[in-house]
């Protein structure tokens, strides 16, 4: 691996790394990574990285915080694996970037796990957040050293394909950018829910809500989203009965249970009333409403 002047400077000034450095634990690190990934052989790029940089820890002044004395990243693979549910890397991150990723360390005070791809690209991830650090070690170290500001986020493939699927339904009511802004923070089901609410807001602004209020829904125009109630400050949204309605509701159930508060909606289809469905699912037995105020969504739990 050819190191540029800046990379050498970062490594030599802020770590014990030297040009003659060789990772004494490279065999153990490779073994740990092979066990973790269930592979028989590591890609050459990853194996070379481990030999050249495995075990290195780089401490440097935090680039954006005055309260934090220093930031650090390390290439201690065993430690990084111990801190991470590696399903994130094997099942989620790898799919999102389109090639297998391998844990090679941690960055930003162990807040993120560092991953390297078979082709030598570098990424950092924490839960759903995955950022691209660079196409080689020089770019990656530069990104880490500079605090990773303005790093490019890697979107979720599931959301991308979902967006493609629902785009025709939006009929220009909601801009693609508005949807993309949400993609980083929501999964497919949450997006579906948010779109319902957002669509209600836009429809009200465009004075087309009466069309829906009067049960004169144009099903061709709004095939996937139904809005069943008031269009004042309170919205109730319905999820159209589709093949995956139940999994949608299951996902939403988990989502709102976990959030300790608020939320939804529920009108899976005409066969159920809200409460019947909820009690049959052992779900929330409260009535929920959502409020849109000053451009922000507020979720309210009504006493019940």
């Amino acid at each position: 691996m050819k190191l540029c002047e800046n990379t050498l400077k970062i490594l030599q000034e802020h770590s014990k790394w030297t040009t003659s450095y060789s990772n004494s634990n490279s065999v153990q690190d490779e073994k740990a990574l092979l066990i973790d990934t269930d592979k028989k052989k590591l890609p050459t790029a990853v194996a070379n990285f481990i030999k050249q940089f495995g075990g290195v820890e780089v401490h440097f002044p935090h680039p954006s915080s005055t309260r934090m004395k220093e930031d650090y990243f390390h290439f201690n693979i065993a430690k990084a694996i111990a801190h991470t549910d590696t399903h994130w890397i094997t099942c989620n991150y790898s799919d999102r970037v389109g090639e297998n990723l391998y844990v090679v360390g941690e960055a930003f005070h162990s807040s993120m796990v560092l991953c390297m791809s078979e082709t030598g690209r570098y990424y950092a991830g924490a839960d759903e957040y995955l950022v691209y650090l660079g196409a080689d070690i020089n770019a990656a170290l530069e990104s880490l050293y500079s605090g990773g500001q303005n790093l490019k986020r890697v979107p979720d493939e599931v959301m991308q394909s979902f967006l493609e699927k629902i785009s025709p339904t939006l009929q220009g009511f909601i801009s693609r950018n508005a949807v993309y802004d949400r993609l980083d923070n929501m999964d497919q089901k949450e997006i579906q829910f948010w779109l319902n609410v957002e669509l209600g807001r836009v429809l009200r602004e465009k004075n087309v809500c009466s069309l829906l209020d009067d049960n004169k829904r144009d099903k061709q125009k709004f095939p996937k989203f139904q809005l069943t109630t008031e269009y004042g400050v309170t919205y109730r949204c319905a999820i159209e009965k589709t093949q995956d309605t139940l999994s949608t509701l299951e996902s939403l159930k988990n989502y709102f249970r976990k959030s300790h508060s608020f939320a939804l909606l529920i009108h899976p289809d005409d066969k159920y009333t809200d409460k019947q469905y909820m009690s049959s699912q052992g779900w929330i037995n409260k009535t929920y409403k959502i409020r849109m105020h000053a451009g922000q969504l507020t979720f309210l739990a009504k006493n019940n």
Partner: protein
Amino acid sequence: MPSHVDEQVKKILFEALSEAAQREKDRVESLSKKANFSKKERKIQNAYVSRTISGVYDCVSKQVYTATSSSRPQLMPAEIHPILKNKLPLGGSLEAGRPPEVCAEFKACNLALYARKDARLEDLTVATVMTTDMSHKTRCANCLETTDGATVITDNEYISGDDNEAL
């Protein structure tokens, strides 16, 4: 001077964290046991262990609140307690690729502040660990700002300031 944190409080906090971490692992494990559990299913069900877990002890109400990192569920702006909202870094996130409100510390403090009407950050003791191995986790630059005032017992020596007590 670092605030003195009662050993009993530390014990309560770490016990709560240990239980919460186990719950998080159990949640993922129970989902993974489903038949035909594919990668796609894992994504949809969010069957991954959150990276960090944070516990907050309210010394007035004697209650413990825990929260995991991750943006799911997403904390909407209206759900953020005004005290925390006022402490959000002005120029945006100080950390790479992540907004302040996805941190476990932030979410746990938010719960604690909302749980008691006159709660203050000064009433709270915070501990954060890596969910997988329960090792201590230092606050990120964002949490240093947002939880400023709380007593934090899992920061390391790289943090400046006097409101934390490294273990």
